[in-house]
């Protein structure tokens, strides 16, 4: 057993992390303390024994495969992030409350416009914009879903787990299918009233 004062010092000495002045003091102590010398020798033997254990060999093909999967996971994550950003831009271009308010106003406006428009057979500019937006949105969601299912189908467990994690790490409130349902139902509501 080390003298209480030197138990940590001895370990730092053994691992060559002792500051010079403290080392001097420790060596001075060692020269007079048989107990600490023996304890240090004991620690050193164990340290050497531990260091003599060879590192695990990892087959290079195994490393290659692991790295490829990690790379695939990272690419999937990047892709997903950019898809999510894209989706968010379409889905949530402004704060949610403002968005719902605007949608409600749009419904009222379109309902009103529907009844007074002299060109009922032709979509108005606003309607065209909404139609276009709607088409873009569907396209985005479709491509998002395609990409997602592709990643899910082709990726291994890690990729799938990664995708799951990303969805939550990015504070996505809902899973994609819910997002899709929610947006589409809102759009249907608007479209039902306006077209």
């Amino acid at each position, binding site marked *: *057993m*080390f003298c209480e004062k030197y*138990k*940590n010092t001895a*370990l*730092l000495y053994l*691992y060559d*992390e002792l500051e010079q002045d403290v080392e001097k003091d420790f060596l001075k102590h060692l020269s007079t303390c048989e107990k600490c*010398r*023996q*304890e240090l*020798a*004991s*620690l*050193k*033997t*164990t*340290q*050497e*024994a*531990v*260091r*003599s*254990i*060879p*590192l*695990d*060999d*990892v087959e290079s093909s*195994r*490393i290659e495969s*692991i*790295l490829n*999967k*990690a*790379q695939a*996971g*990272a690419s999937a*994550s*990047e892709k997903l992030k950019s898809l999510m950003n894209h989706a968010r831009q379409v889905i949530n271009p402004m704060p949610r409350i403002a968005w719902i308010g605007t949608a409600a106003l749009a419904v009222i406006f379109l309902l009103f416009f529907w009844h007074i428009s002299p060109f009922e057979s032709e979509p108005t500019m606003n309607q065209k914009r909404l139609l276009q937006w709607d088409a873009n949105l569907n396209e985005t969601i479709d491509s998002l879903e395609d990409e997602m299912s592709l990643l899910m189908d082709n990726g291994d467990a*890690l990729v799938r787990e*990664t995708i799951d994690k990303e969805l939550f790490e990015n504070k996505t409130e809902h899973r994609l299918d819910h997002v899709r349902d929610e947006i589409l139902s809102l759009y249907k509501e608007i479209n039902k009233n306006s077209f």
Partner: protein
Amino acid sequence: MTTDAELIRRYQQGDGKAFHVLVTRYQRQLASYLRRMVDDASAADDLFQETFYKVIKSLPRYQEQGTFSGWLFGIANRLAIDYLRKHKRQTKIMKPVSQDNSGMLSPDILDPHAPSPEEDVKQRELKKYLKKAIKRLPAEQRQVLLLREHSGLSFKEIAAMLDCPLNTVLGRMRYALLNLRKMATNDFGELDNVL
């Protein structure tokens, strides 16, 4: 030898080979660390993959604060600890040894000598034994021991990584070595006679 920082800079500028050099530099230490931490080769491989997945994801934005090795092992360590928390198993864990049980050693074992064939066999057995014995250490002791031996981090850096006082880290390390010695002595015979 090209420094880690230089390799990272080259990778950030689009040199994929630089990343492979970086991986090659640390793969064995990292794989050994994880395999000895979680005691399940397949889980360790998954954690290895996830570590590099996180590295690949973050490396483009990586800014050096401390060493790459510290960052790499920090990621691996968090993943290993998470894994151990999720997969708490009834493993045979050594009761931490008290200082009274540390045993007395003779310093003459530090003298190097070429082993005879019998000694050589015994030494190889000891290495295998210790590899298993490390996995039986309490997780906190195993963590510090493996980080110090495989990551190249100092105790001070490990303390910062684990966010705990240096003395705690040193205490865990000391008990790790004492416990290993105790196990080896109980189950295998005196280390001094083998090394």
